[in-house]
């Protein structure tokens, strides 16, 4: 998992563009010289940031190749709002790839459950050679064109549901439950999205006995296992660093509260 040839490096911003919705930013950095698995992430801190914000920020690798490292993020707070102001040519310190990835079961159906910007890690997943056993259910708040949904839907069977009202959310939960139930014993789900959605996914996986993996987005201070700020409670009762032991966990291994 850890490649000693990939320490921390300064990459150059190639582009930093708001999508059709200005709160979603598509950031491309120069090629980092490594590749990674879907679900792994990087820590990012612009070289010119002062010390007002002391932490780097974690983001899933949306895609990586010799053309560059792509990240898709939503502006939710001070850090992401500052990141959104990056301009081509500026330097960004990046370390990664970090953490554990989504493990595909080649023999059985794998259903991707993506919520909002949680779709990011699945862009590179959809680029894999074998996609016949992959499908995706995507829940989203903004209109579909704001997300990289089409890139994925062009390669794997995909379906999207928009949530605008509480009724939509309840409806999405019902569909999640049905799909998870249908996969019990025959396949697995791979989920990334807001924490409330992950809780629902875990609940139904356990209820129906379906295999599932979820990617957590705990607050992170360091990304390398040192600060112990990002821990997740395991079913064994321990706290483990989600930056090292996750962010992708088997639903059976962790607790998530309700």
């Amino acid at each position, binding site marked *: 998992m*850890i490649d*000693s040839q*990939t*320490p*921390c490096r300064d990459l150059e911003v190639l582009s930093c563009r708001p999508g059709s919705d200005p709160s979603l930013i598509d950031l491309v950095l120069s090629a980092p010289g490594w590749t990674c698995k879907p679900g792994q992430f990087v820590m990012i*801190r612009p070289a010119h940031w002062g*010390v*007002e*914000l*002391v*932490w*780097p920020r974690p983001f899933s690798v949306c895609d990586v190749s010799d053309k560059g490292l792509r990240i898709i993020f939503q502006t939710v707070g001070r850090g992401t709002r500052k990141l959104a102001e990056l301009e081509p040519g500026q330097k960004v*310190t990046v*370390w990664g790839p970090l953490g554990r990835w989504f493990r595909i079961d080649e023999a059985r159906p794998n259903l991707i459950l993506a919520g909002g910007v949680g779709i990011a890690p699945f862009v590179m997943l959809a680029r894999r050679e074998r996609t016949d056993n992959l499908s995706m259910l995507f829940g989203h708040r903004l209109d579909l064109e704001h997300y990289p949904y089409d890139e994925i839907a062009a390669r794997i069977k995909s379906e999207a549901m928009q949530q605008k009202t509480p009724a939509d959310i309840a409806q999405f939960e019902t569909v999640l439950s049905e799909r998870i139930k249908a996969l019990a014993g025959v396949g697995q789900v791979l989920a990334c999205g807001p924490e409330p959605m992950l809780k629902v996914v875990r609940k139904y996986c356990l209820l129906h006995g379906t295999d599932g993996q979820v990617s957590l987005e*705990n*607050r992170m*201070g*360091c*990304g*390398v*296992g*040192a*600060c*112990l*700020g*990002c*821990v*997740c*409670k395991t079913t064994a*009762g*321990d*706290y483990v660093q989600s930056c*090292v032991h996750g962010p992708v966990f088997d639903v059976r291994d962790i607790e998530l509260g309700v």
Partner: protein
Amino acid sequence: MDQKVQLGPLTLKNPVITASGTFGYGLEFMRYGDLSAIGAICLKGISLAPRAGNPMPRIAETPCGMLNAIGLQNVGVEKFLKEKLPYIPAGATLIANLYAQTPEDFGELAGIFSTEDKIAALEVNISCPNVREGGVQFGQDPHMAAAVVGAVKKRSGTKPVIVKLSPNVTDVRVIAKAAVDAGADMLSLINTLSGMSVDIRTRRSRLANVVGGLSGPAIKPVALRMVHQVAQAVNVPIIGMGGITSAEDVLEFILVGAHAVQIGTYNFMRPDNAFRLVEEVRVLAESLGIESWDDYRGTLQV
């Protein structure tokens, strides 16, 4: 310039030490640099029994700083010695950071580490909350501080003992003197300032533990002031820390009287920062014409 520094019985290659709780067991940073190039590595606080630590959330970002309420999560001394210590490359200078809730347990921990060849010194964390009624800490009461230091010194054998002071006190010199009188070979300061951060929408603290410890550049002025005060009050080597994020900051602490410094929150900003700093400190010192740390240390004109 030869960056070597002599802290009483302890010799360091250079004055840059990574602070406890911010550099894991060193292992987490091996891919980012050569552990043996750093002056020393202060290990994450270790207690006799394993500790699960506090519930989440445990950290919050604040202006030029952060709060943490990790709750000293650690694997316990036994597992540390079996599963962590052997994997830390020889060549790295290691300082064990001790945490316990009674002087006796502190003594027992010191006894265990006293026979570990790979451990160069012991740092005693007396800034741990909730050891008696009202949340007063060992580090806030000179008598309790002395009791802990005495217990540790009795069992520490030849290992130098560093006592880590809390900044949450009226006069840090009082505790510093008590620790030195009780036998401390060195002092390190400051630990985190007690602080809070709240969310006006959820009406909750941003830390499950409600209160946490403030670190980072925000606290540097307080840290410098305390190191300056303590350097004038005692005659043992001092390790300064609190908010260091540059070579310039390192020299500020040495200027007010520190023999060496520790780097905490800065390790989170970029995992190879401590490694880079060793070199940057040398370059800056040379550019200022500093030939040895002994010549520069404590030369603040007041």
